């Protein structure tokens, strides 16, 4: 190796050695492996997306979406500070809940239209425009949640109130009276509190701390109006 370090082009030396003569003495004693694969192993997931979602059966598609909706229902029923609802938002759940609630709030057409309870369209409008207004309000106050994420959370948190509507309808099958009303009042109050707590758990972190109450109050008003519609329902 010492020969290799000598500069063969040194003008002072008049040696007749050829250029790079020392290099021929270098030998690579070890086998440095320089061969290998340069192909990236194809992940099996990519292969799945390539062909399967178009070719899978309709049942698979529906079940996948239903499972996602069901998973979010579980998150609403046991509210923790998680962001599952925020990460993969979808609006199927709110649509199913809103339609169910509006259908259950329908009464028979025996009553005059003017004096009756909310019609299907009124419930729809109250729920969706209420959710949109609250979302716009929270964005105007400086919250950093996206539009559809907020709609998703507000829609999913109607689930406890829909359950309350189911229970109220069952309770109303029994005889009317003050006990009947007390039971319904208790159920609706508990579910209203559950809805507000669940939506607060998801939405509170997206607001700046000195405006949290300003953003939460419209949510409270929104669920209060829906609870009122449920409580005043008479078949």
């Amino acid at each position, binding site marked *: 190796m010492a020969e290799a370090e000598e500069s063969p082009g040194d003008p002072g030396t008049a040696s007749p050695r050829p250029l790079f003569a020392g290099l021929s003495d270098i030998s690579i004693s070890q086998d440095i492996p320089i061969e290998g694969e340069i192909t990236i192993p194809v992940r099996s997931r990519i292969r799945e997306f390539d062909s399967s979602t178009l070719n899978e059966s309709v049942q698979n598609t529906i079940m996948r979406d239903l499972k996602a909706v069901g998973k979010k229902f579980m998150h609403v029923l046991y509210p923790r500070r998680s962001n599952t609802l925020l990460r993969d938002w979808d609006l199927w759940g709110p649509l199913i809940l809103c339609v169910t609630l509006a259908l259950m709030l329908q009464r028979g057409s025996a009553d005059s239209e*003017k004096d*009756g309870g909310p019609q299907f369209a009124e419930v729809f409008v109250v729920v969706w425009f209420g959710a949109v207004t609250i979302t716009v309000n929270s*964005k105007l*106050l400086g919250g950093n949640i996206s539009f559809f994420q907020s709609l998703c959370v507000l829609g999913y948190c109607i689930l406890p109130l829909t359950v309350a509507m189911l229970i109220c309808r069952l309770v109303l099958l029994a005889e009317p009276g003050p006990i009947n009303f007390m039971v319904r009042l208790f159920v609706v109050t508990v579910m209203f509190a559950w809805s507000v707590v669940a939506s607060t758990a998801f939405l509170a972190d997206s607001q700046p701390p000195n405006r949290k109450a300003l953003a939460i109050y419209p949510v409270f008003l929104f669920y209060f109006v829906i609870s009122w519609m449920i409580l005043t329902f008479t078949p």
Partner: protein
Amino acid sequence: MAAADELTFHEFEEATNLLAETPDAATTSRSDQLTPQGHVAVAVGSGGSYGAEDEVEEDSDKAALLQEQQKPQPGFWTFGYYQSFFDVDTSQVMDRIKGSLLPRPGHNFVRHHLRNRPDLYGPFWICATLAFVLAVTGNLTLVLAQRRDPSIHYSPQFHKVAVASITIYCYAWLVPLALWGFLWWRKGVRERMGPYTFLETVSVYGYSLFIFIPMVVLWLIPVPWLQWLFGALALALSAAGLVFTLWPVVREDTRLVAVALLSAVVLLHALLALGCKLYFFQSLPPEHLAPMPQVSPLPPNVPRPSTLPQSMATS
């Protein structure tokens, strides 16, 4: 801490005098440009009243103000333009609500509480709350009446929500528009004080409606004279707030115009309260209901014979 409190109080007064006597810096800038002079004026006032609290808040306030002065003014088609109308904290909204509940003669709501930062959060959500509370308590009155007299037919009456919200929102937005237009038209008469901007007028009206919310809830008590008493009290407080706010602007006008304007404002407010009482709190069976009774003006301080509508005599 007492010395600091004294200092903040004096600064407060000087700031409001400054704001009153420099109309160009205070009010018209808000309608023309969004940021520079208006926010400079605010720095004096907000530094005074929040000085007793965290210094961190004050520093971040000033830092935010300085940043805003450097930003270009957003056009009205951008989201940022509307965001500037919601630039309030919880404490500020509570302070404004408290200020509207307790009007004092020299205490101008626009100068002392809004201070060049009118917001739309208060008016919008107070109107929404009032509309829903009206519908809910009106329905509750029917429930309670049915308990006393089982012949009354109960129904949820959901259409009243629509009526309530349309009425309240029209009042809280169209009347300030008319008032602002009128004051703008009479602007030439005044030397000292410019008119309030449209947003400030809307804010004043919105916050003045807040007292109607507890009044409507108290109307659940089915004692008629108590209901009229609460109504008169709330109307007096609310109208007083409006009058004290508008007085500095109209007092330089001719006497006739000033008196006419203020009495028109009070009259409209009284009409609103009366209309709410009559329409939402009738506890009669539906057959006896007159369709939206003809409301004759009945201001509490003007003795005038008026023809009472049929339902009013029985409610």
